[in-house]
């Protein structure tokens, strides 16, 4: 290649000659996506440095192709290492901060407990419970989620009797519904 050093038009930058070494050191800490000094820095398993917000956006842009923007090695959110410098007092994992992005974060419900059948039973009462005799039976038979404890232990005579009764009530209830529908 031809030597063109004298053709370079730019004057040395203000602030004097910073030195090539200093410049190179700075560039070592530049994010490979925004080319700025990496903030909330993370490093991939392949050794490439990024701002977490930049890398996050890259991973969001192509969810089907999660590769390192530099060397195209496989990459994932779980397999990047946050870097903590000395100035960082809080040492918070940058991945825990929400990077600015349009989509909302999905939060899990507080507790998964409660009575799963409750809503169903309520609905039943509302639509059918208008003072007709079999409905009391009906709802108690169909309230699967009813939290009341089972009356009798399995295998006893009382248990058998309860089972029998509840079957009869079920049939009565079904017949009543059929009557309601077809009458």
């Amino acid at each position, binding site marked *: *290649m*031809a030597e*063109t050093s004298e*053709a*370079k038009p*730019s004057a040395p930058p203000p602030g004097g000659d910073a030195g090539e070494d200093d410049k190179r050191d700075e560039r070592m800490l530049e994010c*490979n*996506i*925004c*080319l*700025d000094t990496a903030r909330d820095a993370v490093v991939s398993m392949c050794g*490439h440095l990024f701002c977490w917000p*930049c890398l996050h*956006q*890259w991973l969001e*842009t192509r969810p089907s*192709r999660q*590769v*390192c*923007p*530099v060397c*195209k090695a496989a990459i994932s959110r779980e397999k990047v290492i946050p870097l903590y410098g000395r100035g960082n007092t809080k040492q918070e994992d940058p991945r825990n901060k929400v990077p600015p992005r349009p989509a909302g974060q999905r939060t899990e419900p507080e507790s998964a407990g409660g009575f799963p059948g409750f809503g169903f039973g309520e609905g039943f009462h509302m639509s059918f419970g208008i003072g007709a005799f079999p409905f009391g039976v009906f709802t108690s038979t169909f309230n699967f989620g009813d939290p009341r404890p089972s009356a009798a232990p399995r295998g006893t005579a009382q248990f058998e009797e309860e089972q029998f009764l509840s079957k009869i009530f079920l049939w009565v209830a079904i017949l009543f519904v059929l009557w309601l529908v077809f009458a």
Partner: protein
Amino acid sequence: MANIAAKRIKREFKEVMNSEEVAGGYIKLALVNDSWTELQGTIVGPPDTPYEGGTFQLEIKVPETYPFNPPKIRFVTKIWHPNVSSVTGAICLDILKDQWAAALTLRTVLLSIQALLSAAEAGDPQDAVVAKQYRESQQLFLLTARHWTNVYAGGPSAIWEFDQKVQRLLDMGIDEHEARVALSHYDWELERATEQLFS
């Protein structure tokens, strides 16, 4: 334009300007407007190719989502190459599509396009007619590419025979570029080109 895109393009622009390739005159980059959304790239044809000695202009459009999505680049200078449309200048290059990576820069992209001129990818053509000629009559392809480089990109080697044929069609009142396209498409057979032009 999104903040990160403009900021990055400004940095890249500086970097390209200080690069060896610019110093050596292999690539160039110029601003088209001051919003940093459109630039003009220039590459010179690589040595030992039919594009040698030519200067090729590229239109570079920077999307708002840059660098998470690739820049949109096409040849403005007409070129005869299997991976470039001879009509629109659209480029078929994987890194400008699904193989884009956010760490690629305008500098690396321009160098990749330049490399594409040295090593065409006939398996993934943009221009089917050019690709067919490239595969089936290599010699004719090289001459046609050199002719286009001479006419459109300021390349040094004129192909006298081709110029004559274009002139013949010009004399019949046909537009010069149209004549050249028809002749190039029909392997420089004057009769078939004429037939097609007047059909």
